[in-house]
């Protein structure tokens, strides 16, 4: 900065000290964040999505570290050295109204950072893993084997049904059996079809890195590959009423063989209720408003509560 009133060496003096402190701190902390903290960042590495999210968290934190450090170092430096010595000092500071180079540099630098973050984020989003989690009924970036047409779709289908206030799960490949626990085979590309029977919920399988809103009348698709056996926590991430907080459950990732035995057991356990279930469909619109609408004038006619497939 160069107002005539101030000798530029004073500027250089302060600038060097600030930059040195900042540089040292950054050189120490930034690698620590990336290499030490990064691998331990949530949501862990149980599934490919989770890895993506962990990687994004790591990269963003790494980029953020020097930025935050600069502001903190600068503010701290100003507090110490740009402070008037004693209360009697009524003098004003140098009248610096701007510095074109500095302003352009600052805005330019932030722009570069932002643009690179955007490119990085978009790459991660369009990447092969479908890291976007809840991607609507016709996801743009899909794993191999996906097809919008059910019968050409090679992926392992699980339908997640939200209802006030619990999750249930349907396996279309197994007579459309509906279970109250989520069990998925390890190492298989899973396609979660999330939908809701009443209000908006959000299916959050934390360790799988899957979060997809369950919206009535919408089939919200998310993909994941669980890479090792274990349990993962399922929660509702969208306020859905008084028991929203209790709308949780524990999912399990098992080996494909163990899955087959499990699903066989489920077919026995829920066998007799399968005929009662509506045919498997992307969304269900239970033709009932609980009598909210004047029955005499409701276009949907009398109250039929059993879920029926969307037209």
């Amino acid at each position, binding site marked *: 900065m160069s107002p005539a009133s101030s000798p530029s060496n004073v500027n250089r003096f302060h600038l060097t000290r600030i930059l040195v402190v900042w540089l040292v701190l950054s050189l120490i902390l930034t690698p620590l964040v990336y290499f030490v903290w990064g691998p331990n960042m949530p949501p862990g590495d149980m599934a490919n999505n989770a890895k993506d999210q962990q990687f994004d968290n790591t990269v963003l934190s790494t980029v953020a570290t020097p930025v935050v450090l600069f502001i903190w170092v600068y503010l701290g430096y100003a507090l110490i050295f740009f402070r008037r010595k004693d209360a009697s000092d009524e003098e004003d500071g140098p009248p610096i109204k701007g510095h074109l180079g500095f302003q352009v540099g600052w805005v330019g630098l932030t722009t570069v950072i932002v643009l690179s973050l955007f490119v990085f984020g978009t790459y991660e989003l369009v990447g092969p893993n479908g890291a976007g989690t809840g991607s609507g009924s016709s996801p743009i970036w899909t794993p191999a084997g996906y097809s919008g047409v059910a019968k050409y779709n090679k992926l392992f289908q699980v339908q997640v049904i939200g209802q006030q206030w619990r999750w249930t799960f349907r396996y279309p490949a197994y007579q459309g059996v509906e279970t109250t626990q989520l069990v998925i085979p390890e190492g298989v590309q899973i396609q979660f079809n999330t939908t809701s029977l009443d209000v908006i919920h959000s299916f959050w399988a934390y360790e799988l890195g899957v979060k997809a809103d369950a919206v009535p*009348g919408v089939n919200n698709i998310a993909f994941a590959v669980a890479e090792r056996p274990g349990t993962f926590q399922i929660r509702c991430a969208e306020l859905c009423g008084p028991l929203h907080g209790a709308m949780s459950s524990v999912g399990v990732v098992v080996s494909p063989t163990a899955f087959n035995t499990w699903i066989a057991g489920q077919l026995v356990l829920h066998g007799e209720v399968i005929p009662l279930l509506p045919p498997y469909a992307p969304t269900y619109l239970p033709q009932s408003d609980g009598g909210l609408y004047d029955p005499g004038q409701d276009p949907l006619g009398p109250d039929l509560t059993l879920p029926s497939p969307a037209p």
Partner: protein
Amino acid sequence: MSQLDDTAGDQLVVDSDAHERKSVLGSYWTASRLFVAASTMLFGAGAFSYFYLHSLDNNSLWRAPGQRPSSFLSVPVLLLTVVASLVYVVVARRAERPGADGNDFRVAAGVASVMLVVAAMIQFWGMRRLGFFPGSSGYASVYVAVMPLFGVWLLIGAYWAEVLLARSLRVRWVLAPVGENADSHEAAAFAGSLNGSRLFIGFLGLLSVVLYVMFSVLK
């Protein structure tokens, strides 16, 4: 970017009345445009709902077959509003010219005000005689939600016109002020309000056309 070389401050004499008049006129100009912008956003929300639900057509219930408000309801509202706004805008513009005779404005303001009130009344009266249930479809829902709001806006326009009419009746010179009156605060306020009301009532006319097209023309 030094701000010292500005010499605006050298003349120390300010005609505070002139300053006040300029400010009043400007305030009306700004505020009336802001009001129209805000109204646009408000009814924009309605239009967005219309086209959004139309495109989704959830449960194939965007519109039950043949669902329309009766033309005996929609057409009179449209005509009354459009005619009223046209009359008002044209005459108000003439009234803004210096030395204009105020009587035609008084007549126009009265007529427009009455027509807008009648239009609003028809709209409200019609809401209970639609022949379809509000929740029977997305279309019905949007119609039942948006139109009463439109009626309220018609009443606002009618009120504005009526206020100017009443003022111009009580203070006869206010439409064509001369001499000392011309630089009175009173004259500035009235002129500003007149200009603003012209914009707003014109906007109402446009709005009624848009709503008519949305609800009675579009498939």
